[in-house]
């Protein structure tokens, strides 16, 4: 089964998709093996697990590791600061302030 056209797979090695457009909460997403309903909005450019990932597994994007999962991640879940981290340097966050549009 082909994946949703709103999701990009940048390299065949990757285990995350990238949202090509903003996707609203409650929409159904077609992954390669299954369809899921996302409970949260996925903004443009954000990552989505292409399959179930286990804690400690490398996150692959552009065919390269961009860090490791810090907990188990379900297929279709967004992959970001809450469930992965850098293998090099900690990521600095601003206190709960957002400039970007919420979708």
């Amino acid at each position, binding site marked *: 089964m082909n994946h949703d056209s709103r999701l990009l797979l940048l390299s065949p090695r990757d285990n995350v998709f990238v949202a090509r457009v903003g996707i609203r909460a409650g929409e159904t997403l077609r992954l390669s093996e299954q369809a899921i309903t996302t409970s949260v909005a996925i903004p*443009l*450019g954000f990552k989505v697990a292409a399959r179930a990932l286990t804690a400690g597994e490398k996150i692959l994007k*552009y065919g*390269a590791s*961009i860090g490791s999962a810090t907990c188990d991640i379900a297929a279709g879940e967004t992959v970001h600061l809450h469930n992965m981290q850098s293998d090099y*340097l900690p*990521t*600095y*966050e601003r206190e709960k302030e957002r400039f970007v549009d919420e979708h």
Partner: protein
Amino acid sequence: MNIDSHIDAAFEWQGYARQDGRKGIRNTLVVVYLVECAHHVSREIVAAFRDQEVHLIGFGGCYPNAYALRMLQQLCTHPNVGGALLVSLGCESMDRKTLAQTIRESGRPVQTLVIQREGGTRKTIEAGRAWIQSTLEALNDVPRVPMKVSDLVIGTICGGSDATSGLTANPGIGRAFDQFVQAGARTIFEETGELIGCESIMAERARTPELARELVASVEKAGAYYATLGHGSFAPGNAEGGLTTQEEKSMGAYAKSGASNISGLIKPGDIPPQKDGRGGLYLLDVVPDGPVRFGFPNINDVAEIGELIACGSHVILFATGLGSVVGSAISPVVKVCANPETYRRMSEDMDVNAGRILEGESTLDEVGQEIFARTLQTAAGAKTASESLGHQEFVLTYKSFAPLGPSCLPN
């Protein structure tokens, strides 16, 4: 600005001939404050020439710094610069005589005004404006000369990155870079701190094994430097834009370099060599050598642009996702917008809409071709968005560098 589809690698235009043999695409006078205490006076001099090619640059520090002197020497003798007015308070450490001598020996008009000697603020402003007025007229006589793609040095940077930067604008610039290198231009990518995580794949593209080791070492140096500072080259906005880690940002940033072999490693102020009219791709190592001394390698994007220009860049290609508005003194900045939502909000600040790739309206190759053509139109005199809006940002801070190693520029 309409893109002329006939612009290709054979495109030629009229540039400005400098006495040292280099060719410029702008004919700018720079007013240079040599310490923060001379900044206001310099700014007042420039303010009288708002719509003319008079730009303000300078160094704020009172303590001596060899890097800052070299940066100002390279910037004041940049091919886009026609002459320089140096403004000194009088008691600061900047070696104004050496700087003026370098500019004079390059064949450019130069004048030094020392505020304490001129008799204060008002008299220095008047003397400065008079010198600029007469020198602007003299600059009309700078001879014009045909220029082609192989005469260009082009730098690239990304700023205000989000998760779209690495999907559209950065690989689009990479495609344009491949065309420029093929056509004989010299291209520079930078920020070794934004290559953390890419060092091994990057090293595979080095022209020699010795250069490959230097490339890896430069990224390891950046990693150690940022680890000491406890902070990578990663702003909070990056995470809000969907980027999670430094290495994810790095992979996106790395795409700006295209697919050419890497010809060499340079440091701020080094001009990439051109042998037998061949083009090349160079990595600019912006992280200081030795122990961490003066803080962050570059405090913002503008500092990096200044370093790319000091390496001879005629034009800067700037990829942005969240939407940077900056331009620069001396060399025009072409803004390539990665995010289609940002482009709709800020189109007046942007030159190329690379985000249309995400909406299925264009391919990466088409965007690469547009960046290539837009760069050459800019070289031929067309104003970029940031030039039209009057952006002329500049910042220069303290740094220290060791000379390049022998393997950095293989034959």
